[in-house]
């Protein structure tokens, strides 16, 4: 009991230190939100495995680490020589870079067409707080969400994307969050707010990478509001170091006839937890959630998704695939809620896991909560090994066992990657996944 209190105290104490700094900058409404967030966290504490939503993901060991907020003086320009090699050379046209959660203008470039805004949340909180007030920290609920509460209390910066009505972006926006490891464990709190006004259309990539040695915790929160008939393709790509902890919450609110396509790809980290919550808040909304996770060694990845159908004629599709090796663990928990008024809902969910070792473990669980009577809901989950028939088929054509395994593992992953509509992203992600698979299992290659 004392242990847990001490850990909480570490954060509460940090908050009181931060408060004096924040008080001078932030608008009053933001300060109030931060206060209620830290008191919410004080009530909640870190989740334990007794909490149903965290049953298979133990953050206990992580919570005992005395993470310090990464400070600005570590933003040493000389350390970014490697940044150009980081992700997607193709995606440099419009890019915001954040180092340990803070905007790095010297590494960022590009802007949106007239009327659109792409910039740092910290800057906007100072200059135009009124534009943020109706949205910021209004979407992501704090109840029972200790990590969201912590992010809300502590975030100092992040990305703001505002797409005006009818704007269609030709190129993806890339939000790149870099966790810089250093001697002591550091925590960063990336925050993203995306507002798409009616009929706007865009692709946005959030990628999380790690540079340097040391233990890092990324506690990220993304809030998205899709206006009527807006279309968003959202990619979240997690590939921090093997010593990284990563907890991310995406909260998406969809208005009438809007469409979301989401890809969540987790390739790195010691412990990764993704909470993806989509509220289909009006009629005729659609969401398509794709996910891919690769874990090996003692890595742990947990995807919790919640699709909340509140109004009629909503459609949701969910397709998550995972590849596990070593003693890794994967958790998939997909909740679909169909509320009383949400007739004619069409919801489908699939989770497929490829288990390459005997010691890997998968916990997969669909959770359907249906309160309407005229709905279609389907779900399915599989955990399997490589097909002996397929291996023999490939070998009978002269492909050796190792290469045949590699081909089939690739094939399993590429079924997801093929669904990505933007060629440059598809190629970029395919290359990252290939490199990751290759690093895990020499002999797997794609010529």
């Amino acid at each position: 009991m004392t242990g847990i209190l001490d850990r909480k105290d570490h954060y509460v104490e940090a908050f009181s230190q931060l408060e004096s700094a924040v008080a001078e900058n932030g608008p009053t409404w933001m300060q109030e939100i931060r206060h209620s967030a830290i008191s919410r966290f004080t009530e909640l504490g870190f989740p334990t495995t007794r909490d149903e939503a965290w049953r298979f993901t133990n953050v206990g060991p992580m919570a005992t680490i005395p993470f310090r907020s990464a400070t600005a003086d570590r933003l040493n320009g000389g350390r970014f020589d490697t940044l150009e090699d980081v992700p997607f050379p193709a995606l440099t046209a419009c890019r915001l870079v954040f180092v340990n959660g803070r905007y790095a203008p010297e590494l960022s470039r590009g802007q949106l067409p007239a009327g659109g805004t792409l910039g740092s949340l910290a800057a906007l909180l100072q200059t135009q707080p009124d534009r943020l007030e109706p949205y910021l920290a209004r979407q992501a609920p704090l109840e029972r969400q200790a990590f969201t509460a912590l992010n809300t209390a502590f975030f100092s910066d992040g990305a703001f994307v505002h797409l005006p009505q009818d704007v269609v972006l030709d190129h993806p926006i890339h939000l790149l969050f870099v966790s810089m490891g250093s001697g002591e464990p550091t925590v960063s709190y990336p925050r993203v707010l995306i507002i798409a006004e009616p009929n706007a259309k865009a692709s946005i990539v959030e990628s999380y990478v790690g540079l340097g040695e040391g233990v890092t915790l990324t506690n990220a929160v993304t809030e998205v509001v899709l206006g009527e008939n807006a279309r968003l393709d959202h990619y979240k790509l997690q590939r921090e170091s093997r010593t990284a902890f990563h907890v991310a919450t995406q909260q998406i609110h969809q208005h009438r006839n809007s469409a979301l396509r989401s890809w969540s790809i987790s390739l790195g980290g010691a412990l990764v937890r993704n909470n993806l919550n989509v509220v289909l808040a009006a009629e005729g909304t659609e969401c398509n959630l794709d996910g891919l996770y690769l874990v090996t060694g003692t890595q742990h990845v947990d995807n919790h998704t919640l699709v909340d159908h509140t109004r009629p004629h909503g459609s949701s599709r969910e397709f998550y695939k995972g590849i596990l090796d070593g003693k890794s663990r994967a958790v998939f928990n997909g909740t679909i809620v169909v509320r009383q008024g949400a007739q004619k809902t069409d919801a489908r969910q699939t989770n497929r896991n490829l288990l390459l070792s005997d010691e890997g473990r998968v916990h997969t669980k669909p959770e359907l909560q249906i309160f309407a009577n005229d709905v279609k809901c389907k779900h399915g989950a599989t955990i399997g090994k490589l097909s002996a028939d397929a291996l023999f088929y490939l070998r009978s054509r002269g492909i050796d066992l190792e290469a045949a395994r590699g081909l089939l593992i690739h094939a399993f992953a590429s079924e997801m990657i093929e669904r990505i509509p933007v060629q440059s992203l598809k190629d970029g992600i395919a290359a990252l996944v290939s490199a990751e698979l290759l690093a895990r299992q020499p002999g797997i290659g794609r010529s």
Partner: protein
Amino acid sequence: MLDIKNLHVTAGEKLVLRGINLRVNAGEVHAIMGPNGSGKSTLAHVLAGRDGAVVTEGEARLDGKDLLALLPEDRAGEGLFLAFQYPVEIPGISNTYFLKAALNALRKRRGLEEIDAMDFLSLIKERAKMVQIDQSLLNRPVNDGFSGGEKKRNEILQMAVLEPRLALLDETDSGLDIDALRVVAAGVNAMRTKDRAIVVITHYQRLLNYIVPDAVHVLMNGRIIRSGGKELALELEQNGYGGIEQTLTTAHTAGAP
């Protein structure tokens, strides 16, 4: 080229092949015919190196090499090819990619460079035309969602691209309508050369109207009970497998002292 001597194979507890003797020379086409459960497919699988069947006695050699000691991929490297009765669907790998990976794997074993991308494209285009496989099937995942006939033609396409020394066709005719059968047979006939051997495994005589064999063997209860020329297939067609068995029994009785 292929030399099988006294081959005994068990699958589970059951003795499936009970002393197979077979010799196939380069340039020849042999048909192995037999009713369901006679051991035809087991023979094909054992030669290709499939798990699950155990050789308890005898040997199989390809150009003098002990086939049974090799891994499946090494058998392919020696020039063996099995056209599957039930081709496997592999979502996520395109047919073209698969063919290229297989061809390059075989070329590597023979000390050859990887095939040039343009040469490869023109090769598969030409071979696909031969077995009347639509270009769109080449870009689709291997056998994924193919019709029965498309799968079988795809097997023949693989054979045509990989150019094996010894091809085993395991019930390639099953499930084909007459038009598809003609296409498949034409593909196989185009592969007949003086240094290649082909073994056609089938239940029905029908295929042998189009692929005319040099020799026919009747496999029943794990043994080759009769061998003969192409006319043996016609005799089977008229009298059925029961008829052949009866003839043998009668011959036996008549010959007894």
